[in-house]
């Protein structure tokens, strides 16, 4: 598509993202997969940008995984969500920000459903009152955390210690952006840039000096797909989807991948190892994989956080080739040292995919 055409489509899908005062909720799985992403996000918005983000320990899972695996019905998930909204109401906030794309999709779906079926909203209010003695207001604004980083991308660029530029060649890094399916494929107007040309990550990449890669399977699912993964016998579907994406992007020689969903970076990172074991094939340069990052990790790198404080040692695919390209200084000896210098253990090296 012609670039001007894309710009026009993006302009039709500009969502309102409030400046400040958010009730922030974490994802139930991201802290295991990418342990420092949410911590980094809060540090950036609170301490670097001076914004108000409130968290409560009473927040729970949104129920998304159980819902999308057909383990619980929609009413149950709506009641869980109603309880989260009640926590926001009690805390005195109106802007709701969530870290997870599955949750974001589910909150959007719930709010849209209540608009169309007010009697269902009334039923959920009644259930919530009977079970928890809580009442709630629907958020005035719902943002995904990547919307917020997108909004402040230029402020982050101004404070940047590093840019998405290859320091050896001076050329922009070639970046694949992968958007979680539940961000805008269900409700395109709720995402920055809509479903087909979401701009949320592309905007960050451009602002931080990188070059966005367009490739045939750009909008294909990462392969997670809930039931595809949860049932072991079905995992081949998940793997094959990821394989399809990598086969499609590889000819464009990406330096890195940025994602905004809990599942996508996990599967695109870990499946590269499984593909290498099954097929003997790797997609990065010199036998490495293509490093996959969350947008918070990339924002952290750009702002000069220590890569090991960002939890990058938890990645399957080695991140060091990318750190070297960006000219980021790091201490390889500290990679497997956790808090207070405690050794956290080094994983066994795989057969094919090269790791550091």
């Amino acid at each position, binding site marked *: 598509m012609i670039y001007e055409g894309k710009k026009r489509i993006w302009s039709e899908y500009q969502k309102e993202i409030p400046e400040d005062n958010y009730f922030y909720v974490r994802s139930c799985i991201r802290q295991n997969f990418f342990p420092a992403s949410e911590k980094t996000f809060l540090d950036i918005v609170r301490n670097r940008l001076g914004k108000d983000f409130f968290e409560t320990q009473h927040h729970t899972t949104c129920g998304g995984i159980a819902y999308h695996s057909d383990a619980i019905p929609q009413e149950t998930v709506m009641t869980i969500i109603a309880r989260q909204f009640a926590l926001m109401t009690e805390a005195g906030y109106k802007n709701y920000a969530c870290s997870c794309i599955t949750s974001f999709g589910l909150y959007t779906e719930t709010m849209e459903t209540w608009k169309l079926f007010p009697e269902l909203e009334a039923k959920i209010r009644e259930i919530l009152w009977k079970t928890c003695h809580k009442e709630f207001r629907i958020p005035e604004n719902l943002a995904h955390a990547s919307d917020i980083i997108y909004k402040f991308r230029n402020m982050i660029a101004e404070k940047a210690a590093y840019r998405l530029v290859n320091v050896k060649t001076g050329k922009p890094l070639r970046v694949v952006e992968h958007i979680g399916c539940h961000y805008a494929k269900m409700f395109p107007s709720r995402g920055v840039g809509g479903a087909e040309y979401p701009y949320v990550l592309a905007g960050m990449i451009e602002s931080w000096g990188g070059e966005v890669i367009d490739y045939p399977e750009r909008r294909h699912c990462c392969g997670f797909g809930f039931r595809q993964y949860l049932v072991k016998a*079905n995992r081949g579907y998940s793997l094959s989807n990821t394989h399809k994406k990598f086969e499609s992007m590889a000819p464009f020689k990406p330096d890195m991948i940025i994602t905004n969903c809990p599942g996508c970076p996990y599967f695109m990172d870990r499946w590269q190892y499984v593909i290498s074991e*099954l097929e003997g094939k790797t997609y990065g340069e010199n036998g490495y994989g293509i490093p996959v990052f969350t947008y918070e990790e990339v924002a952290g790198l750009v702002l000069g956080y220590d890569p090991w404080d960002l939890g990058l040692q938890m990645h399957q695919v080695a991140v060091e080739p990318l750190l070297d390209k960006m000219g980021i200084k790091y201490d390889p000896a500290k990679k497997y040292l956790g808090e207070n210098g405690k050794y956290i253990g080094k994983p066994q090296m795989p057969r094919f995919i090269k790791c550091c």
Partner: protein
Amino acid sequence: MTPDINFGFGLSKSSRINLDNADNEKFRELAAREPDILKCMACGSCAASCSAGNFTELNLRKIILMLTRGAEKETVRQLESCMFCGKCILVCPRGINTRHLIKSIREIYCRPCAEPETGNGI
């Protein structure tokens, strides 16, 4: 290659078809003889009403779709179980003479039908 690790699941081949590389010569011949095939909207009514399809893999909707993509190998053999009863003609909302279409498909795609595995040699 054989993996050392048994993950308990594997990689399936992509079903993506590169139309630039597909061999569509036979399909062009078929479409010239049966232009109605281009009207098929893949609704699947024919497959749903097919008695033979109830007991075998025969699925006309899938066959038509695969032929348009130049991928006939897996599908044309399914036509061996067609009984030429014509029930699919009655249900096709696009008015395609599906029975005649099946006959033409077999004539064009099973040309070296002397081969024993291609069935009854129509």
